[in-house]
């Protein structure tokens, strides 16, 4: 956690926390993305913020759950009241298979932050999702820094979904802006929407250069990031393999 730790060993773990587990393979670079410009290895746990381009869009939720795919431990999902009211509550039947969710309903954004901190202090979780509506004053640089340090100490992914929000000062290690794209055609029904695509723009990052991708969730591979042309080509290839 602390770079100024007196220990000479460059360990990412704080002195009081248990040893950091090995990098899970679900977050290895080959899983996270494909393509030449993936960059260095992605840290296992950090605070990431996802901004929704449209407040009611479902793309940020799908993006976060796709990046958490492969997690077997329970995931804590905290929502404040406005997020529940405006963007809906998690639907059990639609959650990805194998994902165990604990849903916490709180009223204020401050309670979301408190619950996230508590969850980041506990072992045994696979990830933490928090949803905050708007730009509450409680969600300032200090609050995000606390979350970021705790997430790195525990090596636990912590996702903050922001709706109707502006990208103010924040200590999040990754900041995404995610929106929906027209989906791939359904190979069985030309009129129907097929596999969903999202536009994912990484506009701030600590570990790689910012860029924009077309993202999608593949059941076996988790989150797949591609450039636009690749996505279309891949889709065409998928269609051809499906037809052939």
């Amino acid at each position, binding site marked *: 956690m602390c770079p100024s730790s007196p220990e000479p060993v460059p360990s990412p773990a704080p002195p009081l926390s248990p040893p950091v587990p090995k990098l899970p393979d679900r977050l290895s670079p080959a899983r996270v993305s494909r393509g030449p410009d993936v960059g260095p290895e992605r840290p296992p746990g950090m605070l990431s913020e996802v901004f929704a381009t449209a407040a009611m869009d*479902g793309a940020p939720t799908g993006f976060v759950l796709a990046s958490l795919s492969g997690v077997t431990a329970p995931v804590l999902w905290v929502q404040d009241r406005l997020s529940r009211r405006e963007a*809906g509550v998690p639907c059990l039947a639609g959650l990805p298979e194998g994902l165990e969710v604990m849903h916490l309903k709180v009223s204020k954004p401050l309670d979301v932050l408190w619950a996230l901190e508590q969850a980041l202090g506990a072992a*045994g979780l696979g990830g933490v999702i928090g949803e905050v509506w708007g730009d509450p004053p409680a969600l300032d640089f200090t609050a995000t820094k606390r979350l970021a340090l705790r997430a790195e100490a525990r090596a636990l992914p912590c996702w903050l979904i922001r709706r109707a929000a502006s990208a103010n000062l924040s200590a999040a290690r990754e900041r995404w802006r995610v929106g929906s794209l027209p989906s791939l055609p359904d190979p069985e029904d030309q009129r129907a929407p097929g596999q969903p695509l999202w536009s994912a723009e990484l506009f701030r990052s600590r570990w790689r250069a910012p860029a924009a991708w077309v993202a999608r969730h593949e059941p076996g591979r988790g989150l797949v990031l591609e450039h636009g042309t690749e996505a279309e080509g891949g889709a065409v290839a998928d269609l051809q393999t499906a037809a052939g």
Partner: protein
Amino acid sequence: MSGEDKLPVLALLPRRTTDPQPPRPRAGNLHPDRPRPARPRPAVPAEPRPAPPAPVPADAETFERALAALRAALEVEVARPRKAPDLPQPEEEETFSPVGTPRAMRRPGPAGAPARSGAAESRPGDDDGPSRRDPAPRRILSLSLPRFAMERWLRHLARGAEAPPEDLPMALAVEGPHGPVIHATNRAAEAEGVHAGARVVDMRALLPTLRVDFADTGGDAAALARLVLWARRWCPWTAGDGLTSAGGAGLVLDTTGSDHLWGGEAAMLAEIEGALAVAGFTARAALAPTRGAAWALARFGGVREVCPAGAVETRLAPLPVRALRLEPATVQTLNRLGLKTIGDLLAVPRLSLARRFSREAPASNPLLRLDQATGRTAEPVDPPEEPPRFSVQTRLPEPVEDPVPHLPALARELCAGLAEAGHGLRRAVLTVYRTDGEVASVTVATSAAMRDPAHLVRLFDGRLDRLDPGFGFDLVTLDAALTEAMDQAQPGLAGEPHAAEAVARLVDRLSGRFGGGSLLRPAPRARHVPERAEGWSPAMAGALPPRLLRLRVLRPLRLLEPPEEVRVLYAVPEGPPAQFVWRRQTLRVSRYDGPERIAPEWWADRPGTRLRDYYRIEDHLGRRWWLYRAGVEGDGRGTSPEWFLHGVFP
């Protein structure tokens, strides 16, 4: 005497008692720091046994009879020769074999040493259950609070800085059938002749300066229920004894095995009366082996009377029959029959009493009350809730207002006790006993059994702010209200807790802060209406229900609760509308999939509920929604169907 009152009245038979010793002279053990002066009570002669003290008006005849009964009892006890040589030990011989009631207890051991009767000396014919009860004598403490309602009202006035002067006659009134009647009085009013049950207008005529307020009997009952819990500071088994019609109240405590914690029974009685005096209540306490005897001695006996195990009948003999918790009508009947004291009643053959009163309710059955007082019939103390098995406490020399510094030590001690017994904690209650006779408590719960003191202390974080300490408390207890058997678990080599355990503790903290219904785990239900299939159960509930089979059809990632109606701008005959308005934004449907028809659940929905046709649509911006039409055109269940947006696809 009317015919129905006829009873074979016998002369006062000489009565043998088991405790021949005269009443012990009691030392003046008034509590030293009691703020109130000693109660004005008629002087009690030390020897012989006193007549019933005030407020009973001295009845010369009653007094005389009581003296005679007591004298006879004592003389006979000394002069009585041992008879019945066939029995090894003297038996408590009844003058009459009662109906359906066994003979009195025989004591096989040395006199006074209680023991369970063996089969050797028990005759098969008349030997049955009730006489062979638990040989360890119970010690029941009865507390009488004769001015409970008035003192509660005075305390309320004093808190509002409106305390009236001591000599102002005051009374509390309740509504009677012919106007308000007096319910409770203070000492000044009582000295002027104001008494409970009289009409307020009469008492006002008698005493124009009388201040009358209305009584709060419901509040009295609630305060008594809280006082019952507060009395747990002395012993675990406490129960209320009801409110009286004259503004008094009673408590009953089973102090068996608790008195040594207070330096003996006499010291315990003094401590109890002193603590109640600090809380503002006048109390009279007595200790006896049975509830009935303790009740009688607390109200009609001496000051802080302690009745040893064998002396119940001797002590009760001089008391009036009113001391048997009988109704006034029954008391009057007995008095008309010439039975003024309990000693008189004890001398009457049981068969006669049974024949006359056996069909009566307990409150008007002198035989049953007599049996309860002498211990022939069991009458246990029934506390409102069972005392916890694991409980630790800290007693403070001075009242304080913050329990936080005492919590870690209490938690350590409680968890050590739980570990020794192999139990884990599911619910813990921190209770503070305030000096004003109230209790305040905070409850925390855990989702899995645990006995980690640090975690227990952490669960109380932020919860103790809501604890009302009043003007301070001097006793803190931490009870394990609910425990489960729990085995030792081996932690990891690095000392970290198990993952499941860590998650359980997180669940405890989050549920404790946001409420048990806020943190949910999926518990899907086998329903086919989408919002009914969404089952969530509190994470505190523990075990999860079995997982259901997943649907093959696509479901959204988020559901709107409730579904929101959209305004159709451009309807098409087949499929979803081409254009609609939802939340003031116009959405154009570019692609859709469906319909998926979901019928109403006929076993759960009211008749006339319309079916739903669900469409998965994609709008012109690429966002994907779940839209449904309630009903179809011409289904005879209403007007043209409406459209609702129910979910959001990723």
